């Protein structure tokens, strides 16, 4: 697994610290265009103010070592941190790294599965917000070049 770049994570956490998690909103959130449109770390940084996420073994990103097809990469997002209120998926080498953000009210387990598109082999980050702080786990997922189709 390649070492994650600190900058990248700082920028992302800046983005996340503010607008993506409206406090106590029961309504559907407004889609955060700047965050999803951000291509570069700088833009993500500009999106908000923040704290650098800490790597944590309590944040668990489960996924395949090799994805046969980058269009469908299954991921399981878990956090064992108490009061995890948000989980987000960042795919380092996608044109727009932010893939998804999940807001978890109390009573909802920090255990979500979904599937994402990956442009190429790279690190995938799972960001978790718990107790007002940010934590992360990273995993490199290889994306193969296809065969004939199965």
């Amino acid at each position, binding site marked *: 697994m390649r070492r994650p770049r600190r900058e990248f994570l700082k920028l992302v956490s800046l983005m996340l610290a503010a607008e993506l998690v409206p406090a106590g909103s029961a309504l559907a*959130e407004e889609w955060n265009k700047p965050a999803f449109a951000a291509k570069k770390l700088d833009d993500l940084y500009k999106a908000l103010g923040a704290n650098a996420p800490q790597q944590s073994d309590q944040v668990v990103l489960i996924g395949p070592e090799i994805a046969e097809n980058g269009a469908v990469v299954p991921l399981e997002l878990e956090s064992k941190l108490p009061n995890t209120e948000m989980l987000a998926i960042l795919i380092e080498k996608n044109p727009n790294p932010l893939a*998804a953000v999940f807001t978890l009210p109390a009573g909802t387990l920090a*255990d*979500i599965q979904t599937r994402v598109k990956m442009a190429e082999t790279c690190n995938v980050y799972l960001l978790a917000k718990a107790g007002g702080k940010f934590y992360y786990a990273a995993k490199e997922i290889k994306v193969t070049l296809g065969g004939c189709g199965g």
Partner: protein
Amino acid sequence: MGNPMKIRTKLDGDVVLVRVLMSHVMETGLRKTPEGELIPAYFIQTVNVTYKDRTVLSAQWGPAISRNPYMSFKFRGAARGEKVKISWVDSKGDSRTDEATIE
């Protein structure tokens, strides 16, 4: 109104596992037609799940979520016979709501 979702629930004590399959093209806006024209981005942006009128999950998605999205999640305090309601809104403002009774 978007295409129907398939929602499955599995109760274990008072924790319910919800698995949902949605039908949506989730176009990234980066693909081209055979003639070389860009296919515009078109994807689910927000998802909301409620149980007995309280939100149990909300999500913001980008086009990097796979086509025909699949998602699973769990929450506490669920009971048999009650309903889980899932809604999504996409980038064109189209929406879809489906519900399932916990069995």
